[in-house]
């Protein structure tokens, strides 16, 4: 656990960080976002004491970090710096082994660890171990920077725009890779980015900074639902509702108990459903070949012939996919629902456009922040 307690930093007359208090629970990721120059890097540098705070202090696992020898403190904190900072005169393996060497590991253990880490960040050890940083692409260098920071398995990681200097596709890959790793490693992480989308994706908690001050620190859901003021709302952007789509997986929004009926007898079966008092639910229709269709029970009441109403269900997604992906697939195929694979022997779920619409609207509506957003 990391706790910043009223931390501040002045450079001469200029206050880079005013007074920051923030708590990052064990194993969680806190993402700091804010415009350029708002003090993100300064805060990071305070946390591993590359600079001394002018005010306040930091507690790591409940202990005032000034009690520790600074070099020892830093070895327990993996630091991925803005612009990577790999040592150009050292090979990839040597770069990664920096902290293990400082910690006095033996060569065999280090060698094993280097290979393990290269595998972890999805770089072929045999191919890359003896290369120099200049022989790698920007994205590969960022992976090595990450591996180097993780090398001695520090419980805390500071990551300053670790994926900034790469194209969007590579960045997405790196983010996903990192999320996979973090699910296993459960490190306590402070992550800095400019990019609110990245923050929403990576963070358990998002801290928005403005000119050295903390404006709001909340879970991504809470932040999107309840931006505290106009600055936060502006920072999140006008597409707040779209961003919410990123936050939820399909299994959180889908219908799990949609009735499944046979196509030959669908008219009768649908009628029975209505008679039994069902309303406003999606119904899955299956024909003899196993092809699936769907309709909404409400539509039947209004119109009449089911044959005209049913729409194909052509797309199947995983329960872990985001509803944004589901939405994108629906738009691509001009569908208005997708099937969601069931876990093992569970029935598949169905996620409808209408379901998403209601879900997102309820989140936005419930928040006073809605009045703030434009």
């Amino acid at each position, binding site marked *: 656990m990391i706790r910043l307690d009223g931390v501040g930093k002045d450079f001469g007359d200029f206050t880079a960080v005013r007074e920051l208090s923030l708590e990052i629970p064990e194993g969680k990721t806190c993402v700091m976002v804010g415009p350029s120059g708002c003090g993100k890097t300064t805060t990071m540098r305070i946390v591993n004491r590359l600079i001394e705070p002018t005010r306040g202090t930091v507690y790591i696992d409940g202990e005032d970090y000034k009690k520790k020898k600074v*070099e*020892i403190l*830093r070895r327990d904190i993996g*630091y991925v710096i803005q612009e990577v900072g*790999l040592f*150009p*005169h050292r090979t990839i393996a040597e770069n990664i082994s920096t*902290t293990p060497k400082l910690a006095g590991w033996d060569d065999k253990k280090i060698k094993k660890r280097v290979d393990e880490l290269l595998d972890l960040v999805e770089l072929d050890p045999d191919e890359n171990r003896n290369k*120099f940083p*200049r022989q790698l692409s920007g994205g590969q260098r960022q992976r090595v920077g990450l591996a180097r920071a993780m090398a001695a398995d520090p419980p805390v990681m500071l990551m300053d725009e670790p994926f900034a200097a790469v194209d969007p596709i590579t960045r997405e890959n790196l983010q996903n890779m990192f999320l996979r790793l973090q699910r296993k490693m459960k490190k306590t992480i402070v992550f800095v980015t400019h990019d609110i989308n990245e923050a929403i994706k990576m963070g358990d908690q998002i801290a928005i900074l403005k000119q050295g001050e903390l404006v709001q620190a909340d879970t991504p859901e809470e932040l999107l639902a309840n931006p505290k003021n106009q600055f936060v709302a502006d920072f999140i952007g006008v597409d707040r509702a779209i961003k919410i789509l990123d936050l939820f997986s399909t299994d959180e929004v889908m219908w799990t108990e949609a009735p499944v009926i046979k196509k030959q007898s669908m008219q009768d079966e649908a009628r029975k459903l209505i008679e039994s008092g069902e309303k406003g639910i999606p119904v899955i229709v299956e024909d003899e070949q196993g092809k699936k269709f769907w309709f909404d029970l409400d539509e039947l009441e209004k119109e009449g012939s089911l044959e005209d109403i049913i729409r194909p269900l052509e797309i199947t997604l995983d329960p872990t996919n985001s509803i944004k992906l589901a939405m994108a697939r629906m738009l691509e195929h001009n569908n208005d629902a997708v099937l969601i694979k069931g876990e093992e022997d569970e029935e598949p779920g169905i996620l409808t456009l209408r379901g998403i619409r209601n879900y997102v609207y309820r989140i936005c509506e419930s928040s006073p922040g809605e009045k703030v957003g434009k």
Partner: protein
Amino acid sequence: MAITLAQFWDNLAQTYGPIFSERIPPLLIQHIQLVLMATGIAIVIGVPLGIILTRPALRKHSQKVLNVVNIGQAVPGLALIAIFLPILGIGYIPAVVALVIYGLLPIVRNTIAGLDGVDDKIKEAARGMGMYNNQVLWQIEFPLAFPIIMAGIKTSAVITVGTATLAALIGGGGLGRLIFAGISLFRPEFILAGSGTAAVLAIIIEKGLSLFEKVVVKERMPLDF
């Protein structure tokens, strides 16, 4: 009167043969001793001085020290030797002292420039990972600054080979003796042989140091250095 090529070579051999076989070798050895000693001492003083002047505590003094060292080189070599004459007298040691002072600047200046030139981000990464200051210096800063420091050492050595010819004026020996003998006896072949040998020596030392650098560094340096 036309002379044939064979006659020309004959003449050349007759004039220069004895110079190179008899006069040059002992002087050359003296010269090399002077240069190696002076450059060696300049390195031993200059590199640590440059390192100390880039440490945070002393950084603010680095310009002042550079200015002082600069004077050493701004004064013409001849004048420098003249200045030391009354203080240190004549002979080998005063010559070495003068040459060290003369050769110090490029080494100090390049050591400072090399260390200052190391990217702050890289130093920050090293410190951020928990390296002690001396580890940052020797594992990161120094290897990265090494090519630039070496360039300073090469410059200094080459300058010293030239300046060392002046050592003869205060009894320091070396190839200068032949050159000055040539001047006073009006024997241009002495002047040519002496300065030519010094020039070749400068080239050899330069190439030798480059080779040393290559061996030490192998391919470990970034290409854009």
